[in-house]
Structure formats: C-alpha cells, structure tokens
C-alpha cells in the first residue's frame, strides 16, 4: 500500500456555531483580544509578500504587532500576485443581475464541486464587498463605466457579472496597494523586510511554531528568526510541473518543510490546469504564459472539425469549425469553469483536432466580437493582452485567432487549515494559495486575488491575535534553543550535500523530467495504472537526483543552482504525495478527473458516499497517513455539478 488511513484522528475545523450568515460575526464577537499597549510585545513572522502576505503584514502592523516579512525576490512587490490578470470577484451586485452573498457562496462551493467547507466559502463571499471599498481607498484603479461607477465583467462558472478589474493587470494593481500599505509600516519600523531571503525550515519548540531558518540568497548566510507565531503566505506550487504559468522562483519548499515538521497537507493533487495559456513551442521552454480568462467573455473557442487540418484558421469556413464548449455546455458556453474547459480542450486535442505546429492548441477567436464591437472596444478591454500575445508569438490576434492551450496554474491543495487559518501545528498559520481552504476541487476565476486579500486583510488579523491571546503571556524565544541549532545544522548539511554529489545532470533536467511525469499521469486526467507508474518513476528519479546531480559547489554567495536544488528536492517528494493523493481518491471531482469515474459523455462522476472529505496527509517514516476531515453540508445540498 502506498498509504495508510488513520480514522481515529478527527481534524478540528473549529467552525463557529450559528447560522451560516452569523458564523463569522459570532467568531469575531467571541474572539479573545490583546489590548493595544500589549501588542508591541508580540512578534510575527510572515513568509511571502504577495497579496496575502503583504496584506497580512500591513494589517497586523497597523494593529500594533511587530512583523518580519521574508521574500526571495529583490523587492516584496515582485511576488507573483503581480501577474494575476483578469480580476477580483465581489458580490456588490452593481449590475443589478441578482448577485448576493448567498449566490456567490453557492457559485464558489459548486465551482469547487462541493469539496470545501461551507462556512469558509460563505465567509469569503461575505468579506468580498469590503475588499473592493478598501482597494479603492488605497487607490487601486479599477475599471469604471462612463458614469464613474466601477465596471464588472463575467468570469467562468457564474451567470452574473461580479468581477472587478484593472485592465489585464488587476493583480499588479492590488499588489501595489498592499505593498504600499506594508511599506508604510516598514518606514514606521513595525515591519522588518528581509528580501532575497528564502525560508529553509520551520522551527518548533515543544510542538509549537516558534520561528524559521532562512538563507540569505546573496551571501549564503544561514540565519535563525524567532517569533510568537509564523504565517506561511508562500503561494502555490504549480511550478512542480516545470512548465506552468508561475514565476521561476515560485516553489513549495516552505510548506513542504512545514509538512515535514508535522503540518498536514490537504488534497495536494488538486491542481488547476488553466485553459487559456500560450501553447508550448519547444523543449527549451521555461514558462507557459497565461492569457486571462476574461478573454473568454468575447473570444469563442473552437477547433477544426476535420482532423489534422492544415489550412490556416482564417481559411476554414464557419460550418467546418467546432465550437465545442458552446456545443457541449450551451448554458455556460465559452465561460464554462476552468477544469471543464481545460479537459474539453485536451479531449479535442487528443482526438486529433489540435492546431498549431505541435498540434497542441485550440483557437480563441475574436472575429465575431471585433465585427460587433469594433477594434477600439476590444483594445480597450484587452489591449495589453493582445500586445503580450504578439510580443511572445509574433502574431497579431486582431487579424487571426489566438492559439491557446491548457497549462498548470493554481494549487487548490496546500497546507490544511481550520476556520481560523491555523494549521494543525499551534502557532503556524497558512494564508492565500499556500493553504487548502475555500476553493475545493476547482477554483473559480478571480477568486484567487479575493482569497489572498480576504485572508490577509480581514481574517488573519482577527484569528492570529485570538491565538496569541490564548497562548498566555508573550514569551521571549531564544534563538540558541537546541531546536534552532539542530534545524540550522540540518539545513547547512543538506546544502553542502547537494554540491558533493558532483554527477552529470543539471537541476533543470530533473525538474523537467518530474514535470513530464506529473503532467502526463497526474494532470488533467488520472488513472490508477498511470498514477502507480508515476509513483515508481518519481522514486527512481529521486534516487537518480541524489546520485547524478551537478551544481556549482559553493554554499556562500549567489548560487542559483543551489537554490533550485533545494526546491526540486522538495518537489520530488511533493510529486509523489500528489500521485498518492490522486490514487487514493477514487472519484472525479473538479480538477481531479479519474478516467475510471466518468459518464458515457465524459462528465465527472463524484462519489459523495465514500469521498465526501478533505484528505489531510500526515508525514510518517513509512507511508503517508491519510486523515479525513468529513465535510458537513448543513445549508446546501451537494448536487451534480452541471454546466450544460
């Protein structure tokens, strides 16, 4: 067996009492507080400075706590939230199209295929309205109507328009807001910013998180940092597929090293493969660029009816085009949710209808929208995306359709957290994409910026002080504690050992091989046989990594290969757990599609009787241990997720 099950441990989700609408208020009403003059006595470490980390740092510092933030980039404002394009959801109902907290809650829960906690999802929808007001107050330049009101557009999986946006650069604008709020606290000396630092271990004293070990990426110095609580805001680990929409530095090391110290990882195989990315064009490629889902508001997706079509897109007549999303999902059409749109694309590509030189893409066509609305209107909405497309591909998408393809994008899985965003390790919190919380088995577009902001601005600033208040008087932690010394020693030894292997293959070689295995066997579709093969292949690759890796030896000063080696070493372990997670879940839900569990027309078959739970994985010296958090649907009834 690849894993064992522990049915005695029951995760404590800590969902407050009361009606769904009252739970968050009830929590806030009853949360323990720390008085303003005592907050200065507590120190919080936040790892990661994207939207969730920066917003949490700014908010906690504003409350009076001392905060240290860490990021591997040269500036906190480069965190990959900066690349989010399309928008952020909020149930303002500005369009008068029937939106409400409940509708947004239900859309998100259904979008995630009923594999998330009701109370968490409801809170996300509830807090969404305030976020827009807060961001506007910070100066985030959301798009506006001629009248001056904020504009909305529609994203996949919903039938209302609730997405607020700043052209195709919403993430950058929101991040600048959070970054400025945080830098104000840096100036006020409430936040200390450690740039070009990477967390390499979590330190526990008596089972409680008390600090981290970090490496200065410029000097190679290993340093110990103490705190009364540690927050991981380190984003997702989709870069494990090597080719992904993520930044080169995005990694899973912080959460994985926390996992190795006892934190549960929840549903790690649930990865969103985004349907609208630029297709791979060669083996040298380092990155697949995302084209915002917002393009699907006006672009129509199709493939040629004829297999191995060699005519140009513009030469293929209308009746020989298969608008397969409109055909299969008439009520949502091109705005079907991401998992469904990606799988439908893969189905057509595998059936021989793919386009482009590697036959690995589908068309996203603006012909009709350009004819109806004119070039100026389309340029206003998507101009920067069309420019970006032309820069990368050399093709003018005003004249011919874009070629797009699915690519690894977002990790729904991550560290398990309770309603208070605390992991099972006391004092260790996880926010934003690094946790598993609100999106279930599939995230809806424009809910990621929302979750990062809501976790950082609104939830953590309530729940983390509640933890501190319960943990007694503020204590001073000694960085010479044996736990810190031991952790530091282990980190140093690992770094030195990478250099000593002195084999024949680069880190990128191993990363690319791992990516291929995972994309093939633990990507858009999964089978029992494929996953079993993948687990063995990853084990072999890992053995080979420790025998045949070649990196420059030195551990002091800048050594990018050493940084990458640590990340890929972790990926080689995370990848195996992803496959075990996918193997253990014998149903199809959201982005997790097991070929054995589908209807005759290729739709997912979810199994609520046996798999109505979140899989929490505990580290063990033997096989990983599965602990189940059973989901209770008190206020909704899980239905078949149909977008037909």
């Amino acid at each position, binding site marked *: 067996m690849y894993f064992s099950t522990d049915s005695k441990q029951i995760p404590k989700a800590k969902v407050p009492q009361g009606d769904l609408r009252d739970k968050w208020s009830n929590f806030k009403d009853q949360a323990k507080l720390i008085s303003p003059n005592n907050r200065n006595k507590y120190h919080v470490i936040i790892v990661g400075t994207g939207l969730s980390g920066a917003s949490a740092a700014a908010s906690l510092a504003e409350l009076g706590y001392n905060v240290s933030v860490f990021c591997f980039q040269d500036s906190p404002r480069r965190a990959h939230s900066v*690349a989010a394009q399309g928008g952020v959801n909020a149930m303002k109902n500005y369009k008068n199209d029937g939106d409400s907290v409940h509708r947004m809650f239900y859309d998100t829960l259904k979008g995630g295929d009923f594999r998330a906690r009701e109370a968490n999802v409801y809170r996300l929808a509830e807090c969404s309205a305030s976020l827009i007001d807060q961001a506007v107050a910070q100066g985030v330049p959301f798009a506006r109507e001629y009248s001056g009101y904020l504009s909305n557009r529609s994203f996949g999986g919903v039938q209302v328009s609730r997405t607020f946006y700043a052209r195709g650069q919403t993430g950058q604008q929101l991040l600048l807001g959070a970054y400025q709020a945080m830098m104000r606290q840096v100036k006020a000396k409430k936040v200390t910013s450690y740039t070009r630092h990477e967390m390499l271990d979590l330190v526990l004293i008596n089972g409680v998180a008390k600090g981290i070990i970090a490496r200065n990426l410029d000097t190679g110095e290993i340093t110990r940092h103490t705190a009364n609580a540690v927050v991981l805001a380190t984003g997702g680990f989709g870069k494990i597929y090597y080719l992904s929409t993520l930044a080169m530095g995005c990694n899973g090391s912080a959460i994985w090293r926390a996992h190795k110290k006892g934190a549960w990882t929840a549903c790690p195989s649930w990865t969103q493969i985004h349907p609208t990315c630029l297709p791979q064009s060669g083996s*040298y490629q*380092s990155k697949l660029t995302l084209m915002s889902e917002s393009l699907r508001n006006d672009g129509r997706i199709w493939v040629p009816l004829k297999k191995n079509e060699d005519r140009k897109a513009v030469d293929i007549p209308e009746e020989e085009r298969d608008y397969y999303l409109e055909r299969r999902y008439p009520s949502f059409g091109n705005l079907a949710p991401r998992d469904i749109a990606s799988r439908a694309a893969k189905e057509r590509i595998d059936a021989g209808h793919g386009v482009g030189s590697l036959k690995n893409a589908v068309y996203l066509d603006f012909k009709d929208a350009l004819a109806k609305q004119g070039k100026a209107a389309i340029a206003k909405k998507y101009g920067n995306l069309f420019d970006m497309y032309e820069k*990368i591909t050399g093709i003018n998408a005003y004249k011919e359709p874009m070629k797009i393809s699915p690519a690894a994008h977002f990790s729904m899985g991550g560290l398990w957290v309770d309603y208070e965003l605390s992991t099972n390790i006391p004092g260790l919190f996880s926010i934003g994409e690094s946790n598993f919380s609100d999106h279930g088995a599939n995230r809806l577009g424009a809910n990621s910026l929302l979750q990062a902001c809501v976790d950082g601005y609104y939830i953590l600033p309530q729940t983390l002080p509640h933890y501190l208040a319960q943990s007694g008087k503020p204590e001073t932690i000694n960085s010479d504690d044996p736990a810190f010394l031991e952790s530091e020693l282990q980190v140093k030894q690992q770094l030195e050992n990478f250099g000593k292997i002195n084999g024949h293959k*680069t880190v990128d070689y191993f990363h690319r091989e791992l990516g291929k295995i995972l994309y093939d066997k633990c990507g858009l579709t999964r089978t029992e046989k494929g996953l079993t093969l993948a687990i063995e292949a990853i084990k072999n690759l890992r053995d080979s990594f420790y025998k045949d890796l070649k990196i*420059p030896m030195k551990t002091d000063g800048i050594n990018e290969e050493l940084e990458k080696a640590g990340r890929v070493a972790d990926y080689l372990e995370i990848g195996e757990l992803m496959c075990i997670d996918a193997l253990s879940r014998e149903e199809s839900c959201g982005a997790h599609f097991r070929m054995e569990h589908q209807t005759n027309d290729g739709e997912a078959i979810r199994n609520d009787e046996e798999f109505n739970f979140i899989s929490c994985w505990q580290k063990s010296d033997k096989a990983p241990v599965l602990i189940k958090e059973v989901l209770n649907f008190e206020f909704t009834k899980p239905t078949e997720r149909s977008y037909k």
Partner: protein
Amino acid sequence: MDFKLKIWRQEQAAVSGKMMAYTVKDISPDMSFLEMLDQLNENLILSGQNPISFDSDCREGICGQCGLFINGRAHGPRGHTSTCQLHMRSFQDGETIYIEPFRAGPFPIKKT
C-alpha cells in the same frame, strides 16, 4: 540560429570584471532571450564552469525583476519590452550580441 555572445563576467561587486566570449548553437527564433541564456548555462554547468547569474522571475513582463543591457541598450532592441519578453527572432542569425548588467544605482551588480 547561432550566436556569438560577449558577456560581462564579474564574480562580486568588489572585484573587477571583464567581457568573455561564448557561442550558442541551434537556437530557435521562438526562444526568449533568457531561455537562450538558460541553455548556455546548462552547458556551462555540465562542463564545470560557473553559470551566468541573471535575475528573472515572472518571465511574462510584469514583475520587473529581469533586466540586461543588450547591445548597448536596456532590455535590448525593442521598445516597451522587458528582457524576458524579448525573443531571439529579434536578432540576426550569426550576430554577435553584447550582454552587460545595468549600470544603475537601484540595480547594483552582485554577480554576473
């Protein structure tokens, strides 16, 4: 495509640097400039040489972390294009390309 590269190599801020010559072969015109350097680095690492250090992160033209001085111009020959969004189709086959770090206060040289 094949290129001759003249790259500014400097071990640290405190030591002096110099231009070094390299060649890269079989480069696809669809490759990004940084992917071309990735390929050079793979070869350097495998032959036991010190790879070239350069910053990059998002590689989609938004984070602002990358930046090379290419043929005497910041980010190379195209306007409104960060280094990561520059592709080899913007160069002539066989061309010699000069690559240097920015010489600007906010971007101090750490290692190249």
